[in-house]
C-alpha cells in the first residue's frame, strides 16, 4: 500500500482529472453539480498525495512523452508549486461547495464545466517547467476566468469582463514575445535549461522587461491594476473569490518562478528589485486608500486585493540579501491571502444575497440575522489585517523580521501603514454590520452550505497561523528559493 501511494501518478491526476471532469459536466449537464464537487474533492486529495510524495522522495520531475527537457515538456513539482496547489485545492473546495448553493439551474450548467477547466489550467500552470506551456495554461486560465466573470450578465459585469479580457490578452501576448526572444536567444523553453544557458545580454534584458511587464499587467500590480476592481467587483461572488485568490496569484507565481530561476541571478542588482518594491509599496498605499473610499462591499474587497498584491512585491528588494526568509514570508502571505480573500468574497456574496445589495452603509443588522457570514468576514479580515492568531500575521511577522534585520525602515513603515489602513476599511464594514440600516428591507434566505463554506475558509486562514512550521518546511522542499543562506 505504501509503495503504491508513493508511486501513484498524482501529477497526472491533478492535471487530467479536472479536465475530464469538465468534459463530463459539459456532456451530462444534469449531474454537473455532483461531478463538479466530486472532481474538486478528489483533486484536493491528490494534492495531499503529491505533498506526501514529494515530502518523502523530494522534488518530482516528469518528462511528458518521455522526450526529456529540451525537446519535450517537463513537469516539475517542488515546495513552491505544492504550496500554490494546496491554496488552489483549499479555495476550490470552498468555492465549489458555495457555488453548489449559489447558482440556479440555468447558470450552474454553464458554471461547472468552465470552472473545472479553470481548475485544470491552474493545476497545470503550477506543475509545468516549460515557459511556452505556461503561455498556453495562462491563456486557458484567462479565457475561462473571463467567461466566468461575465457569467452574470449586466452592464458592470460585462464591462469588467471586457476590460479584464483585454488586459489579460495583452499581458499574454507580451509574455509570449518574451518567450519567443528567450527561445531564439538560448535555444530552449525549459526553465532549468534556460537557467543554465542564460547570461546577461540584451536578449535577457528585453525578455525580462517583456515578461515582467506582461505578468505585472496580469497580476494587476499598481500602475497596471485598472482592470481588476471592476472585474472582481462585479463578477458573481464565487467567481470573484476565484479571481482574487487564485488567478491573480498564478501570474505572480510565474513571475516569481522565472525570477528565481532565470532572471534573479542575472538581473537582481538592486535597482530592478527596488522598482518592484516601490511599485509594491505604492500598490499597498493606493489600494488601501481606494478601498477605504469605496461605498460598495465587493469593490472594496477588490481594491483590497490590489493592496495585498503589493505586499508580495515588497519581498523583491528584501530578497536580494535574505532570499529564503523573504520569499517564504511572501509565499506565506500569498497562501493566507488566498484563503482569507476567498472567504471574504464568499461572505460578501452571502450578505449581497441576503440584503439584495452590497452598499456598506446600509448593511442591516447583519450580525444578528446572518451571524456566520459576519463571523467569516471578521475572521478573514483578521488574516488580511495581519492580527495575531492568523496566517496573515505569520507572513507579516516574517516579512517584518527580514525588513528590520536589513534595516529597511521604509518597508516596515509601509507594511504597518498597510495593516492600519486594512484595519480601517475592514472595521468600517464590521461596524456597519452591527448597526441598523436606515431603511430596513426584506431579506432572502441564504442556504447553510454557502455560509459554512465561507466560514470554513476563514477558519482555515486563521488556523494557518498555527501551522507555520509544517507549511514552511513543505514550502522549502527542493529549496525553490536557493540554498538558505540564513535560517528561515
Amino acid at each position, binding site marked *: 500500500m505504501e509503495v503504491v501511494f508513493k508511486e501513484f501518478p498524482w501529477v497526472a491526476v491533478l492535471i487530467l482529472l479536472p479536465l475530464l471532469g469538465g468534459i463530463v459536466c459539459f456532456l451530462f449537464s444534469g449531474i454537473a453539480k455532483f461531478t463538479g464537487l466530486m472532481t474538486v474533492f478528489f483533486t484536493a486529495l491528490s494534492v495531499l498525495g503529491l505533498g506526501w510524495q514529494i515530502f518523502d522522495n523530494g522534488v518530482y520531475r516528469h518528462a511528458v512523452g518521455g522526450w526529456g527537457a529540451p525537446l519535450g515538456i517537463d513537469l516539475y513539482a517542488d515546495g513552491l508549486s505544492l504550496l500554490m496547489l494546496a491554496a488552489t485545492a483549499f479555495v476550490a473546495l470552498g468555492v465549489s461547495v458555495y457555488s453548489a448553493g449559489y447558482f440556479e439551474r440555468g447558470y450552474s450548467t454553464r458554471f461547472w464545466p468552465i470552472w473545472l477547466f479553470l481548475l485544470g489550467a491552474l493545476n497545470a500552470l503550477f506543475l509545468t517547467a516549460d515557459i511556452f506551456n505556461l503561455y498556453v495554461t495562462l491563456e486557458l486560465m484567462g479565457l475561462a476566468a473571463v467567461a466566468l466573470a461575465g457569467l452574470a450578465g449586466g452592464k458592470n459585469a460585462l464591462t469588467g469582463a471586457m476590460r479584464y479580457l*483585454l488586459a489579460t490578452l495583452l499581458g499574454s501576448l507580451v509574455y509570449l514575445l518574451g518567450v519567443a526572444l528567450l527561445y531564439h536567444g538560448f535555444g530552449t523553453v525549459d526553465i532549468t535549461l534556460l537557467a543554465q544557458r542564460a547570461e546577461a545580454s540584451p536578449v535577457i534584458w528585453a525578455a525580462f522587461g517583456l515578461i515582467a511587464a506582461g505578468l505585472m499587467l496580469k497580476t494587476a500590480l499598481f500602475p497596471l491594476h485598472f482592470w481588476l476592481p471592476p472585474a472582481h467587483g462585479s463578477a458573481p461572488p464565487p467567481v470573484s473569490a476565484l479571481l482574487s485568490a487564485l488567478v491573480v496569484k498564478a501570474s505572480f507565481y510565474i513571475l516569481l518562478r522565472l525570477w528565481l530561476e532565470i532572471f534573479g541571478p542575472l538581473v537582481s542588482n538592486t535597482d530592478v528589485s527596488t522598482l518592484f518594491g516601490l511599485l509594491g509599496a505604492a500598490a499597498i498605499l493606493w489600494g488601501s486608500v481606494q478601498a477605504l473610499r469605496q461605498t460598495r462591499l465587493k469593490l472594496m474587497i477588490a481594491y483590497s486585493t490590489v493592496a495585498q498584491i503589493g505586499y508580495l512585491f515588497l519581498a523583491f528588494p528584501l530578497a536580494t540579501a535574505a532570499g529564503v526568509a523573504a520569499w517564504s514570508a511572501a509565499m506565506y502571505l500569498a497562501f493566507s491571502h488566498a484563503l482569507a480573500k476567498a472567504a471574504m468574497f464568499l461572505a460578501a456574496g452571502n450578505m449581497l444575497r441576503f440584503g439584495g445589495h452590497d452598499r456598506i452603509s446600509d448593511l442591516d443588522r447583519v450580525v444578528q440575522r446572518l451571524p456566520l457570514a459576519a463571523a467569516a468576514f471578521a475572521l478573514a479580515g483578521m488574516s488580511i489585517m495581519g492580527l495575531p492568531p492568523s496566517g496573515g500575521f505569520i507572513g507579516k511577522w516574517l516579512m517584518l523580521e527580514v525588513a528590520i534585520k536589513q534595516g529597511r525602515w521604509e518597508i516596515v513603515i509601509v507594511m504597518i501603514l498597510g495593516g492600519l489602513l486594512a484595519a480601517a476599511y475592514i472595521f468600517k464594514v464590521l461596524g456597519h454590520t452591527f448597526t441598523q440600516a436606515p431603511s430596513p428591507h426584506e431579506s432572502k434566505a441564504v442556504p447553510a452550505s454557502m455560509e459554512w463554506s465561507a466560514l470554513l475558509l476563514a477558519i482555515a486562514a486563521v488556523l494557518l497561523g498555527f501551522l507555520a512550521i509544517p507549511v514552511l518546511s513543505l514550502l522549502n522542499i527542493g529549496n525553490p528559493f536557493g540554498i538558505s543562506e540564513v535560517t528561515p
Partner: protein
Amino acid sequence: MYFYALIGVGLFSVGLYALINYAHLLRKILALNVMGSGIFLILIALAKRTGETQPDVVPHAMVITGIVVAVSATALALTLMLKLAAETGRAELSEKDRD
C-alpha cells in the same frame, strides 16, 4: 530573414499603438490580432537561422498553437463585445461610469 523579424517587431508596435489609442472594441480586437501576427512573424523568421535549408520546426508548432489560441480569444472577445453593445448600446469601454 532578419528583415521579417524586424517587420514582426513593427507589426507588434503598430498593434500596441492601435490597442492603446482607439476606443472602439472591434479596433482593439483587430489590434490584438495584428500584434499576435507580429510575434508569430518574429518566432518563425528567427527559426530560419538553422544554417541548412530545413528551418527549426518547433516555432512552427508554437505558432500554430498560437493561431488557434488567437482565434478562440478573438471569438470570445467578439461575443463579449456584442453582449456589451447589446447591454450598453455602445461598443466602447466607457470611462465615465467608474464603478
